[in-house]
């Protein structure tokens, strides 16, 4: 176990040491203390290491993550795990806006609430939120699954492509072209797996499923003639 004190060393030193692990994985377990809300903590990891962040983190925490498993014992600022490729990121507290934005893969778990635009333009990442999400969540989501154990804010799933959204609580409003869809056995099974992976003790049968109605311009074969 290696412990890095951010108040002493700063984010650049931490991230450089973590990046060095991509070439030679010599230390599996890392602890970061005295975070003081610093931005860019553990960005660009590319090794199968475990990192524990003890305290609140600022913007873009664990951004671009590959392979690593990151746990934050606190809240995180804008863009946690943005553009994540693989691995997992767990937030014990709340996340600010644009959590998991543009993520291609891996699992992001937010045990508390996420603010607006959670999963915006998600491209394959799975996101499980224990609490509520803010407005415009999964906006233009292309692939992946977004699971919300609490309520969803306005315009959920606006201009959605192929993301599947599962919500247990109330949906304030659906965005353009987002509709409720039937929960078939395959969806209950998929949701069960995601909830288990995220460690959420929830009954899949209590959720509703939302997805794209595929009615917007890009989905119309007639528009192919424009090219």
């Amino acid at each position, binding site marked *: 176990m290696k412990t890095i004190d951010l108040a002493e060393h700063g984010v650049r030193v931490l991230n450089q040491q973590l990046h060095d692990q991509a070439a030679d994985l010599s230390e599996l377990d890392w602890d970061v203390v005295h975070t003081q*809300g610093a931005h860019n903590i553990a960005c660009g990891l590319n090794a199968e290491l475990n990192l524990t962040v003890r305290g*609140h983190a*600022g913007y873009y925490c664990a951004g671009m993550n590959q392979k690593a498993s990151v746990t934050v014992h606190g809240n995180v*600022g804008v863009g946690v795990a943005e553009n994540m490729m693989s691995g997992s990121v767990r937030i014990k507290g709340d996340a600010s806006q644009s959590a998991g934005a543009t993520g291609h893969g891996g699992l992001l778990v937010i045990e508390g609430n996420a603010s607006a635009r959670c999963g915006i333009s998600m491209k394959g990442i799975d996101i499980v939120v224990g609490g509520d999400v*803010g407005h415009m969540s999964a906006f233009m989501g292309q692939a992946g699954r977004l699971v919300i154990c609490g309520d969803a804010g306005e315009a959920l799933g606006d201009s959605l492509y192929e993301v599947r959204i599962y919500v247990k609580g109330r949906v304030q409003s659906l965005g353009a072209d987002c509709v409720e869809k039937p929960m078939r056995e395959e969806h209950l099974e998929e949701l069960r797996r995601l909830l288990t992976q995220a460690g959420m003790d929830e009954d899949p049968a209590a959720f509703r499923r939302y997805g794209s109605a595929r009615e917007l311009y890009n989905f119309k074969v007639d528009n192919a003639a424009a090219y």
Partner: protein
Amino acid sequence: MCGIVGLYLKNSQLQPELGALFTPMLVAMTDRGPDSAGFAIYGDEVPDGWIKFTLQQADAAYDWTGLVEALEQAVDQPVHWFANSNAAVLKTPAGEESVREWLWAERPEVRIMSVGRSIEILKSVGLPEQIAGQYGLRGMQGSHVIGHTRMATESAVTLEGSHPFSTGMDLCLVHNGSLSNHNRLRQRLIREGIRFETENDTEVAAGYLTWRMRQGLSLKQALEAGLDDLDGFYTFTIGTRDGFAVVRDPIACKPAVMAETDDYVAMASEYRALAGLPGIEQARVWEPKPAIVYVWERQRKEHAA
């Protein structure tokens, strides 16, 4: 970009430490606003029937003594005062209008930063650290304080463009964002008798609140009306003589984070600015929701039933 911060003490025993607690918050937002900074601090309240003016003049050697002597003669009332760097705080039982009129007519080179029973606004061009040092912020006492660090985008890096702005008694607003309907709204407010010192959009928001509260609306009601009337991007933090409020526009592009303990309520653009506050590890830390008005107000003893 810009950074905004606010600290409202619930525990009055902390009042001697207000400046010491707040200075690191302002300095932490230097990355968001290195061009100019300022703050509105509430404390050192004047007695009933008196008011306090904060005046500023770019020239640090400005003849405040001469100004005060001439003002005392003109309004035939005592004026107590002290200088603080390039600013001066004047306390007087004279009427607000008579002092304003005299200053406009006789000392047009002096800028009125704030008027009220409790408020003092101090601001300057430069790094937040330097400005906090210039005015001795660290040693200041009071009940609450709000501040702004500016990264200039829409107007020059000047004292005139520095925040915060005040347009009414003890009212101050700091703003991260930009308003799109400020021109038309300014015209409407001028017709309603609100006066503006600059062309700045933020000053219009402050003027709007002054106007609404003059109509009898509470701070909360005025801000709720503002959600309909102010168009643009904003996170506002507002101070009044006894109150502290935070509101974000419904789209909520501009960041905000809050923390509350038994001792204080704090607001900042980023959590970094809150990280040094005492007891922050145990504080309730949350992101204020879009289009929700958060208000804290202390009840005055004379208002108690």
